[in-house]
C-alpha cells in the first residue's frame, strides 16, 4: 500500500468515526489522495473534473429528482387519501383489516414512487393515525408500516434501481420489470404474517363496504391509480423513457391534484419543490462526490484486489451470492442505501461478471438487501421515520419488526436462488 492510498483509507475511516456527512467526506478523502499522489492521472482538479463531467453525462440519474418530486406531489395532494380509501374498500371486513390496508396501500403506492422513505412518511403517516384510532399497538402499526414500505423501491419505479443501473450499465427498464414479482411476493408474505398475528392478538375487524360504496371509492381513486398506468405503460410502450416517466407522472400528479382533487395550491407546490430540491441535493451530491472516490478506487485497482480475494474463497456462484447477501445485510444495518451502492457496486461488478451472475438479477437482489437494511437496527431510516411519526419507542418497534424482517429475508433468499422469480417478466419483454 502506498502513502496516498493509506491517507485515503485513513481519512475515509475518520469520516465515519467523526460523523462527517459522507458526500463532503468522500471529497475530503479524494482531495487528500490527489494532494499526495504523484500519479499523473491524479491531479488536484480531479474532484471537480470527476464530479462535473460524470454528473453532466448521467442522463439516467435525472430520474432521481423527478421520482422524488413525483412522490412529493403524490403525498401533498389527496392522492394518498384516495388510495387509502380504495384499499380499505378492497380489504373490507377482515380481522386486522387496517394492517392489511397498510400493506396493500404500500403495494399500490410503490407503483407511483420509487422510495421507501416517501412511502413511510406519506401514506405511512395516515395509516399510523388510523391504526392508532382503532386501537392497534403503536409498535405493531409502526413495524408493519416500515416493513411494507420496503416494497416501495422493489416494485417499479425505484430510485435505488436507477442508481444501480447507472453504476452497472444495466437497463433500467429490465431492472424495473425484475422487481415486480419480488415486490408482490413480499406483499403476500406480509399479508399472511399479518393475518396470523391479527387472529392471535384479536386485532379489530374492518368495515364491510356495500357494493355501491365500494364502487364509489374505486371511482374516486381511479385518477390516482391511473398514475401507475401512465408510469409503467409509458415506459413499456416506449412513449417515454424511464427517466421521462418520472416527469410525466409528476405532471399528471399536479394536474389531478389541482383539477380533480382540488388539493394542491401554490403553497403546497412550493413546499413540494423545496422538499424535492433538498432531497435531490442530498442524493445527487452524494453521487457526484462518489465519482472521484470511485476513480481512485479504480486507479488503485481495488476492485481487482477484492475480486481476487473473494474468488479465492469460492468460485461457486451460489456460495458467492450467499456471501454477498450476508455482507450487504450487515452493511445495511450500519449504512444508508446510497453510499453502499456507490461504494460497493463498482467493486462487486467484476466478481458477478466472472461468475456469470446476471446483472439484472443481482440488481434486484441488491436493492432488496439494502431496503431490508433500512428496517434493521441500529441504523434503520424507516424505523426512525415511523418512530418519529407515531412517537412509539424504537426498541418496541424493533421487537415487532424483527419477525417481519425474517419473513422478507426468506423472500430475499427465494429470489436469490430462483433467478426466474426476478427474470421471468424481463424475459417476457425480450431480455436475454
Amino acid at each position, binding site marked *: 500500500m502506498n502513502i496516498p492510498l493509506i491517507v485515503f483509507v485513513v481519512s475515509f475511516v475518520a469520516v465515519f468515526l467523526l460523523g*462527517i456527512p459522507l458526500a463532503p*467526506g468522500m471529497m475530503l478523502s479524494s482531495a487528500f489522495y490527489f494532494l499526495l499522489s504523484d500519479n499523473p492521472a491524479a491531479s488536484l482538479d480531479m474532484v471537480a473534473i470527476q464530479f462535473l463531467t460524470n454528473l*453532466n453525462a448521467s*442522463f439516467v440519474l*435525472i430520474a432521481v429528482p423527478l421520482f422524488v418530486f413525483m412522490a412529493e406531489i403524490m403525498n401533498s395532494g389527496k392522492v394518498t387519501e384516495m388510495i387509502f380509501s380504495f384499499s380499505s374498500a378492497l380489504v373490507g371486513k377482515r380481522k386486522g383489516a387496517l394492517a392489511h390496508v397498510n400493506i396493500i396501500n404500500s403495494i399500490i403506492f410503490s407503483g407511483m414512487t420509487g422510495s421507501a422513505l416517501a412511502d413511510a412518511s406519506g401514506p405511512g403517516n395516515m395509516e399510523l393515525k388510523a391504526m392508532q384510532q382503532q386501537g392497534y399497538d403503536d409498535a405493531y402499526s409502526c413495524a408493519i408500516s416500515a416493513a411494507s414500505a420496503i416494497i416501495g423501491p422493489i416494485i417499479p419505479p425505484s430510485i435505488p434501481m436507477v442508481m444501480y443501473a447507472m453504476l452497472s450499465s444495466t437497463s433500467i427498464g429490465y431492472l424495473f420489470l425484475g422487481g415486480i414479482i419480488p415486490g408482490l411476493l413480499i406483499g403476500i408474505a406480509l399479508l399472511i404474517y399479518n393475518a396470523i398475528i391479527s387472529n392471535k392478538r384479536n386485532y379489530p375487524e374492518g368495515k364491510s363496504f356495500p357494493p355501491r360504496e365500494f364502487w364509489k371509492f374505486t371511482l374516486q381513486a381511479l385518477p390516482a391509480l391511473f398514475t401507475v398506468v401512465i408510469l409503467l405503460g409509458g415506459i413499456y410502450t416506449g412513449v417515454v423513457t424511464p427517466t421521462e416517466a*418520472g416527469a410525466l407522472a409528476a*405532471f399528471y400528479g399536479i394536474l389531478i391534484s389541482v383539477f380533480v382533487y382540488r388539493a394542491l395550491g401554490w403553497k403546497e407546490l412550493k413546499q413540494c419543490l423545496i422538499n424535492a430540491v433538498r432531497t435531490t*441535493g442530498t442524493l445527487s451530491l452524494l453521487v457526484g462526490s462518489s465519482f472521484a472516490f470511485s476513480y481512485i478506487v479504480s486507479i488503485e485497482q481495488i476492485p481487482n484486489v477484492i475480486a481476487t480475494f473473494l474468488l479465492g474463497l469460492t468460485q461457486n456462484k451460489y456460495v458467492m451470492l450467499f456471501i454477498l447477501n450476508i455482507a450487504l445485510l450487515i452493511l445495511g444495518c450500519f449504512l444508508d442505501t446510497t453510499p453502499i451502492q456507490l461504494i460497493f457496486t463498482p467493486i462487486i461488478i467484476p466478481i458477478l461478471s466472472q461468475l456469470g451472475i446476471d446483472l439484472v438479477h443481482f440488481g434486484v437482489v441488491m436493492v432488496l438487501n439494502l431496503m431490508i437494511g433500512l428496517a434493521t437496527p441500529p441504523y434503520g431510516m424507516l424505523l426512525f421515520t415511523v418512530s418519529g411519526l407515531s412517537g412509539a419507542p424504537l426498541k418496541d418497534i424493533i421487537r415487532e419488526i424483527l419477525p417481519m424482517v425474517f419473513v422478507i429475508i426468506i423472500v430475499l433468499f427465494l429470489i436469490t436462488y430462483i433467478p426466474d422469480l426476478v427474470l421471468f417478466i424481463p424475459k417476457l419483454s425480450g431480455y436475454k
Partner: protein
Amino acid sequence: MPDWLKKTGKFLVDCIELYVPILTFSTLFVSFVIQIFARKFFKPLIWPEELSLICFVWTALLGGLYSKRMGTQVAFTMLYDAAKPETKRIMRIVGNALLLIAFAIILVPSWNYVQFMAYKKSDALRIPMNIAYFPFVVYLVDMIVRLALEIVKEFTTPEAPGGAE
C-alpha cells in the same frame, strides 16, 4: 451588525441555497415535459436534454448546500451520537477543520478547471461550460465560509451549535 445587513445577507444566502436551485429544478422538470410532448406530437428536440443536464448539476450542488443547512445530509453518526458532549464538540471541530482544509486545497485547482472549460460550449444552446460548472466553485466557497463560521462558533459559544454537518 445592522439589521438591514443581516436581512440582505440572509436573502443572498437564500438565493444561492434555495431560490436558484428551485428555479433550476423547475426548469429541469419543465424541459422534460416539453421534450415528451414535442417528441410525441411534433419532433424531438435537442435543447431540453442539454438544459436539464445543466440544471441537474446546478440543483445537485446548490441543493446540496440547502440539505447541509437543513441537516439532512447522509452521515454515519452512531459513534458521534454515543459520545459525551465535550467529545462531540472536539469531533465537530476536527471534522469541520478537516473538511475546511480539504476544500481549501481543491478550491483554486477547481476554479482553474471551471474557467478553463469556458472554451467549450453546449451543442444546442451554446452555453459555455464554465457557466454550467460554476456552482461547483460556489459550493466550495459556501462550504468553506460555513465551516469556518462553525469552527469559530465552537470556540465563542459555551453551548455546542449542532451536529458535525
